[in-house]
């Protein structure tokens, strides 16, 4: 385990951080090739740009300013949730679901603010917000699958960009929920314990960024 942490952990960390460039470059190439993509493409593209900005901000924070970038998580989580739920908002047609999404964004924003001010503080991971975000996004993805599977007009589900995105969201957030949930507890014991949590998130993050490429490929022709 020690060998992994000393030799490979940082490579994995950098790979995870830079992996956002893959969907970003893919989106730009697809945009150049296909011209006028739909709303889903632009929604996911905005999300990818946001991920790239957060990764850059993370590096700058570590090397230039505080040495810790955990505070970014308090900004990242609510904005990430708002962006992803906006993509789902555009995909649903039912007014009740749309209203529910708007309410969930407001409630979640309040919960994030509450955790930032009265929770573990900005030097720790916002575990509750992360777990809450994972839960709501998985619920949204499942809701999308439920609505989709009732609609028999979709002959090839795997060709639907929102279906691919929902699969990616479910895998990524279900896989990282426990890791983020236990991060503070693990960090209190040792750095390596926390690194185990982060290793899981890094692997899933790389996978999720690859899924985003597939989403954009389907979204551009949808």
């Amino acid at each position, binding site marked *: 385990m020690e060998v992994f942490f000393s030799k490979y952990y940082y490579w994995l960390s950098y790979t995870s951080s830079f992996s956002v460039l893959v969907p970003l470059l893919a989106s730009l190439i697809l945009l150049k090739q296909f011209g006028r993509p739909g709303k889903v493409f632009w929604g996911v593209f905005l999300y990818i740009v946001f991920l790239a900005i957060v990764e850059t901000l993370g590096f700058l924070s570590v090397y230039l300013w505080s040495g810790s970038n955990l505070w970014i998580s308090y900004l990242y989580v609510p904005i990430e949730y708002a962006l992803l739920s906006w993509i789902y908002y555009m995909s649903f047609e039912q007014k009740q679901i749309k209203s529910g999404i708007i309410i969930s964004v407001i409630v979640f924003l309040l919960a994030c603010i509450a955790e930032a001010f009265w929770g573990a503080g900005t030097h720790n991971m916002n575990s509750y917000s992360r777990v809450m975000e994972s839960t709501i996004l*998985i619920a949204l993805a*499942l809701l999308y*699958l439920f609505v*989709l*599977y009732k609609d*028999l007009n*979709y*002959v090839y*589900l*795997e060709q639907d960009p929102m279906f691919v995105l929902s*699969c990616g969201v*479910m*895998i990524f957030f*279900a*896989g990282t*929920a*426990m*890791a983020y949930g*236990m991060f503070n*507890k*693990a960090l209190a*014991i040792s750095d390596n*314990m926390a690194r*185990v*949590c982060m290793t*899981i998130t890094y692997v899933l993050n790389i996978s999720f960024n690859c899924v985003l490429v597939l989403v954009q490929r389907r979204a551009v022709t949808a």
Partner: protein
Amino acid sequence: MNVLQPLLIITPILLLLVLGVIVFVLLYQKRLLQHKEQVQRLQTTKQYQLLEATMQAQEEERRRVARDLHDEVGSMLSLVRLNLHQLVAGIDGANEEVRHAEQTIKKLLDEVIGSVRRISHDLMPVVLDKMGLAQALEALRRSVPATAKVAVTYECNDKSRRLEPKLELILYRMVQELLNNTLKHAHATLVHVKLLFTDDEVTLHFEDDGVGFDYAAHLQAASQGVGVVSLRSRVNLLNGKLNIQSEAGVGTRVEITVPTKQHNQQTLYQL
């Protein structure tokens, strides 16, 4: 590491659950689609069977009426003509007026007999049975009366070629329908019919220089004309393709392509 035990146990379980949900949705949706397709297939088959039965009944009725007209009405009219001749011949010293009346009645009877024969042949063309579609279309071309003031031209790349009798009959009926429509509505002066045989397909071109019609509007209309619907149904029954091009004022072009070998025998009605 004990602290991380829940993480290492629950995370794989969650991932497995998520993968399970995705696979379930994919498989279930595929199954639903298969079911929907099967129901659609059954409905289509039922519709075809109904159409086949209707067409079969129609053809049988035509055949019966044609036979009755030809064998009974036609024979009786010929007998009436003969009796008239004998009646007049038996009158001694029949005057010029009687002779003239006899000639007029005979002329009328000849016209009626001719009409009965023509109607009978239209209903069940003997040439089609004996000589095939190519020759039957030639006979159909010739049967267009001069009073219609329409010049019908016909060409075929293989006049000796025969197809399955049922296929020939359906194609013949379609040409009859098109020709009737042209004579009734198109105000055309020229009609061109072309029959092209290839190894696997037969293509029928029908073209007139009549007033035409707005085909796009016709398709969008809630109640499409019976003629187009009937044509389309017959072409579908033969697994063929129908292409109609028409605009107001520029005539009508119809192209029908059907495979010469009908693999699915269910799609052809039995005569």
